[in-house]
């Protein structure tokens, strides 16, 4: 064994010059150390763009495509105190400073809900260690020895690093979590105030906006009141909670109302942000969200759960989280439903020119044409912006054996005549329940005809999770009039999620970390009750995945007299 090892050592020396030559030809392709480090950390690629060689659990070979630093220590560098494996933080300030197991360090970890007894024990077990430097970091990564010459457990893999990558990694790790007091205001964190924004596009009507703002105002009032109370008597809670009262701040919400056409929004958003940068954007509403999505991605600004039918679905963002895929999700589930039927009469998609319905129609087209075996044909019926709908428009359509897909708003939908005499030889109709705002405005009972089916993104009526009743009670007790239940409960959800996230974050104001926490806590426990199930996961950006196609009679409100 030893012989073979020393043989290897001498072979290394012997081939040094050859390698020198070879390496000089393959210069790093990336511009600077930071980028090399970031790519290595997140993608496991070395400076020369090849995947790093990794050993797990002592003898399992892998590579950087399968396992990289971000897998375990996460993009934020704050690690993972939740999973089956406690992973310590390796952000700059933690790693390159001495670590002493002070009360606060340990409590910070325990304060978060560390779940398993095993991880709890590991947190208590954290020992003092010296500060890392580049060489010690290298030793930890390649040979698994920490800065105090102690063996790291085998759940920290071993990586084979070259000098250029190591240098980049060091630079990159130093940048992680490196928010000092001077730079915090740049991300909306002031000594006493935590700034948030909410965004409305010009299409949102004043009543909707007022309904949403009423929830924000009621929540923040309560939240800020409690924070002041806690700060007045800092030893109010037993145990370690009061150690972190200092991290709490007053929450302030800025309302960013956009005006004009979407092309003008980026400039307006930049001006708002320039005037007051915020830690994240909460909720808000708008028909089209692309410009806002792009803005949030460019600024690394978390943009959490807006009310929009058109989330950006083509490529998931890093910083923008949505309730669902909106109309894209609706079109997908309708396509799946239609393709599961034996016999589908020709589809006619009905929408207004230049409306969001037009976008939905394209989504459905794409999905229907993607499946080669599908024999479903589809055509469009486009209503011009001025055209008014009435019986003359609908009656000929309803008389044919067609599959009508209505991507229309409520006003247009309400022009649909009574369907009471429609029979099986005639049209069957699919309607987007979200576009006609069915959650906020139920139809009159006789309108729920069986020729009509809804694409339904919410929990089944009368089968909503219990939290719905609690959320409604919360609104009532705060005197918030429930005029737009959907948007209001969604806003309540966002506030709950952010409240939990800030609670876990304590004084570690990293936007990336806040998103990682939200990815973890957005499970059913925080579901406001509107949705059948919600969940996220690392890099998942759409919390609600399943839609139902419901035949209208299933939706007749329970308390109505038929």
């Amino acid at each position, binding site marked *: 064994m030893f012989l073979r090892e020393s043989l290897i050592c001498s072979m290394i020396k012997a081939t040094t010059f050859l390698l020198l030559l070879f390496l000089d030809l393959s210069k790093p392709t990336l511009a600077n150390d930071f980028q090399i480090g970031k790519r290595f950390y997140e993608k496991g690629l070395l400076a020369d763009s090849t995947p790093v060689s990794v050993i797990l659990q002592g003898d399992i070979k892998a590579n950087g495509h399968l396992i990289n630093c971000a897998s375990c220590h996460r993009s934020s560098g704050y690690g993972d105190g939740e999973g089956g494996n406690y992973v310590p933080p390796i952000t700059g300030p933690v790693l390159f400073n001495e670590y002493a197991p002070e009360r606060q360090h340990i409590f910070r970890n325990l304060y978060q809900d560390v779940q398993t007894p095993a991880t709890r024990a590991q947190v208590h077990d954290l020992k003092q260690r010296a500060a890392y430097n580049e*060489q010690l970091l290298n030793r930890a990564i390649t*040979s698994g020895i920490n800065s105090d010459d102690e063996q790291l457990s085998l759940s920290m893999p071993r*990586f084979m690093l070259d000098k250029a990558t190591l240098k980049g990694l060091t630079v990159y790790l130093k940048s992680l979590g490196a928010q000092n007091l001077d730079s915090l205001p740049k991300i909306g964190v002031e000594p006493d105030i935590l700034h948030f924004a909410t965004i409305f596009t010009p299409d949102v009507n004043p009543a909707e906006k007022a309904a949403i703002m009423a929830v924000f105002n009621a929540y923040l009032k309560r939240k800020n009141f409690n924070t002041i109370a806690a700060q007045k008597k800092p030893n109010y809670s037993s145990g370690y909670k009061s150690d972190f009262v200092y991290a709490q701040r007053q929450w302030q919400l800025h309302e960013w109302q956009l005006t004009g056409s979407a092309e003008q929004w980026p400039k307006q958003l930049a001006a708002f942000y320039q005037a007051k940068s915020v830690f994240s954007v909460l909720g808000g509403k708008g028909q089209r969200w692309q410009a806002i999505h792009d803005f949030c991605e460019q600024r690394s600004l978390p943009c959490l759960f807006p009310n929009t039918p058109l989330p950006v679905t083509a490529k998931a963002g890093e910083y923008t989280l949505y309730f669902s895929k909106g109309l894209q999700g609706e079109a997908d589930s309708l396509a799946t439903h239609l393709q599961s039927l034996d016999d589908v009469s020709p589809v006619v998609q009905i929408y207004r020119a230049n409306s969001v319905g037009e976008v939905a129609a394209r989504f459905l087209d794409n999905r229907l044409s993607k499946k080669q075996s599908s024999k479903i044909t589809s055509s469009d019926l486009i209503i011009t912006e001025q055209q008014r709908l009435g019986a003359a428009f609908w009656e000929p359509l309803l008389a044919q054996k067609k599959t009508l897909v209505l991507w229309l708003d409520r006003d247009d939908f309400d022009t649909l005549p009574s369907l009471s005499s429609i029979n099986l030889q005639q049209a069957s109709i699919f309607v987007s329940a979200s576009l006609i705002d069915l959650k906020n405005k139920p139809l009159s009972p006789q309108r729920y005809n069986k020729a009509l089916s809804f694409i339904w993104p919410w929990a089944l009526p009368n089968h909503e999770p219990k939290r719905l009743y609690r959320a409604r009670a919360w609104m009532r007790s705060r005197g918030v009039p429930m005029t737009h239940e959907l948007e209001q409960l969604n806003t309540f959800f966002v506030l709950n999620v952010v409240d939990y996230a800030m609670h876990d974050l304590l004084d570690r104001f990293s936007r990336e970390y806040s998103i990682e926490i939200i990815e973890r806590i957005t499970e059913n426990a925080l579901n406001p009750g509107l949705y059948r199930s919600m969940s996220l996961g690392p890099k998942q950006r759409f919390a609600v995945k399943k839609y139902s196609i419901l035949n209208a009679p299933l939706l007749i409100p329970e308390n109505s007299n038929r």
Partner: protein
Amino acid sequence: MYRWKIVGQRDLCAVYAVKNSLAKQRLLSVLFSGLFLILAVLGIEPSDAVEPNKPRYQIREIQNTLDEAFTQKVSLIDANGGAVQLSDLVAEHRQQPVIMQFIFTSCANVCPVMSTLLRAVQKDLVGKAQLISISIDPEFDDSNKLQDYAKKFDAQPHWRFFTGELNDIIRLQKQIDVYQQNKMRHQPVTFFLLNQRLFRLDGLPSKEDTLAELDKMLEETQLSVSSPG
């Protein structure tokens, strides 16, 4: 001055490198790459010669859960979109050990390590065992996602991936006591089904340990590993 108390032989090259790196940075960067290259050429990878001080896994037989868990209806969908019942799947492989893990494709910390273990042992188990990974996030993990995941981990045909109905999969996890309210608290567990007996391994073993444990289980259950037919 560092104390190199528990460094294995193989790490001596690294020791040498670290000690001198201040003076000869450039040379040593090359040296390091050289080490990597040569080891790669020789088929040797960096590894840890030190025995871990703590046991990394526990293994135990689970009594009486097998029938309950695997005979009732759990509808699964494989990476090609094909539907199958878990009980059929298990019955199909009566003659061979089945190694089963729960994972989800967006999982960051534990699952990649678990799947990397199966990736490593699959080559030794061609014709000798079936490997199964079941998603605990079935609403996100559709067949396409499973296909991508399988490709990423170089899965061979005897390693199959399944998704299904959320409620079915939750029930199954509850029956074999691996269910966590939140999938992010997912624990590393590997199940071994042999000759109608179910073993549970908690933790993250090495490849060698895994194969050795499997051999022991085979002996105990008197299941032969020769390829059928």
